């Protein structure tokens, strides 16, 4: 299940329970899956057309009128096109607006770089009052949507276009700001987010078979960062790998590096887009092209461990 599909379902369920929820979209409700909510609750759905800046402002106004707005479009437009509206109107005023964007990262595929958000986490993470979440699978996405509806304040949630495997265990309970530890490794720990969690888990299986103790942490909340878990991981192993479908500048890699360099400096390797745009191609092809496969992770770890 793609995380965007989980969003569509979660939003529909939430809409049944809470009458204060309103949804806005900018002519992409079929792709973002807000269309499900729109069909069930047309009076609480506002298509603002191809006008993202106006959508963010309208969402702010609905929040001021006591509603709980979810505003959705592609991540590149939600965070890039409307960044200043998010800054000035939502974050500066600390409004209860939920920005849930789909089509994050290069796994968007064929549409190419114009539609692949690879800087969105950086753009949102830098804003005061903003919370940033990147769920790893459908189950976690549903929990994230419920959790943020109970939380007051601006939140950015980045979802994907492609189907992703279920990686989180059945008993998992998402809490804002809490990372999930699959395992803490003695040799290396991979801190991953979004679709890279499943890639990290695959990489850890390969290396564990070769006798390397690899830990995996799902850092689904990038802000506020779960520094407690990070410190634990950094103290357990001398090497940390960060893995994200985003630029290595400003995203998870930066967040982890910023914290650990001040608190517990160790060797960190950031995996992600190395100051580059994406391009067209099939999602799996692109992950390979940009070095974000489980094999790339194992290779990076082996090289780093030899140093």
């Amino acid at each position, binding site marked *: 299940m793609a995380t965007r599909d989980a969003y569509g379902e979660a939003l529909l369920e939430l809409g049944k329970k809470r009458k204060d929820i309103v949804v806005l979209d900018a002519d992409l409700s079929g792709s973002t899956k807000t269309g499900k909510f729109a069909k069930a609750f047309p009076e609480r759905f506002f298509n603002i057309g191809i006008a993202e800046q106006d959508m*963010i*402002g309208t969402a702010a*106004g609905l929040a*001021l*009128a006591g509603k709980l707005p979810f505003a959705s479009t592609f991540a590149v437009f939600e965070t890039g096109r409307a960044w200043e509206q998010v800054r000035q109107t939502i974050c500066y*005023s600390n409004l209860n607006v939920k920005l849930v964007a789909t089509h994050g990262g290069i796994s968007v595929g064929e549409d190419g770089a114009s539609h692949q958000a690879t800087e969105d986490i950086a753009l949102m993470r830098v804003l005061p009052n903003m919370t940033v979440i990147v769920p790893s699978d459908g189950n976690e996405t549903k929990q994230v949507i419920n959790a943020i509806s109970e939380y007051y304040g601006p939140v950015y949630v980045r979802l994907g276009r492609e189907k992703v495997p279920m990686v989180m265990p059945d008993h998992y309970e998402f809490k804002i700001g809490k990372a999930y530890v699959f395992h803490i490794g003695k040799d290396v720990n991979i801190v991953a987010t979004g679709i890279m969690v499943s890639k990290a888990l695959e990489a850890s299986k390969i290396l564990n078979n070769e006798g390397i103790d690899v830990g995996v942490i799902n850092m689904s909340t990038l802000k506020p960062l779960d520094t407690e878990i990070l410190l634990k991981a950094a103290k357990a192993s001398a090497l940390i790998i960060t893995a994200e479908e985003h630029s290595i500048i400003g995203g998870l890699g930066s967040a982890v590096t910023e914290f650990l360099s001040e608190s517990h400096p160790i060797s960190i390797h950031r995996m992600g887009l190395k100051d580059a745009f994406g391009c067209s191609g099939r999602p799996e092809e692109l992950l390979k092209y940009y070095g974000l496969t489980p094999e790339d992770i194992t290779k990076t770890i082996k090289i780093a461990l030899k140093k």
Partner: protein
Amino acid sequence: MQHQIIRRERDVSFLEKQARLVRVEILKMLSLAGSGHTGGSLSAADIVTVLYFSKMRHRPHEPMWKERDRFILSKGHAAPLLYAVLAMTGYFDISVLKTLRKLGSPLQGHPCSRLLPGVEISTGSLGQGLSVSNGIALGLKLDNLSSRVYCLLGDGEIQEGQVWEAAMTAAHYRLDNLCAIIDLNGLQIDGPVSQVKAIEPVDSKWLAFGWHVIKIDGHNMAEILNSLDEVERVKEKPTVIIAHTIKGKGVSFFEGKVEYHGIAPTKEELMKALKELSEEGG
């Protein structure tokens, strides 16, 4: 000095007197602050006075009253004007106006809603207030509340593309509880609007976007009152009041001067201006 609070007053001479006092407070706070936007605060002073002292239903001692009418200052640089009417209608003590732009003050250089009750939304980055106003208007309709939303824009501000996105949204959703007011003073920081980047014909632009358009003299109290009455009779579409104004209105040596867009009066200028305003008051 504590001003008397009388609201929903339609007496023109009373409103003219309040507007004069509003201008006095604007000039005093700007002069003390040593910086800020004089011209655009003065040009819209009559309109905003009528809104706060006459037209809007609001409760200064209950700023979050659910059924209040909303005022959104999209041209956030006219913050001194908003602060003056908020203080004079009783939202906070008038002595706070002295703290404008000072460290720790709730009166930020541009309005900040987190710090000052009565400010509905933080503004200052131009072009964003109309979208917010639309959202509030939509929310009020969902709750079947009859409250209205008034949004004040600058004329230079409508060069921002987002204004026109919002103009389309308001017409599409038939927001007849929304009124935009354009403070058409003809000047922006870099010079006359017509020279920087022409916006005329303003009325036919809004007409073409599906709005009801009213044109008034933005310094004529009777015209302001009548236009705001007309707004309430318009159904199924939003209304824009295009208010022809004079930048720096009320102080002869500021009027129509582009250089007073973004600077505050000196002490000498303040004394001269206050003298003019008091003579005008008779």
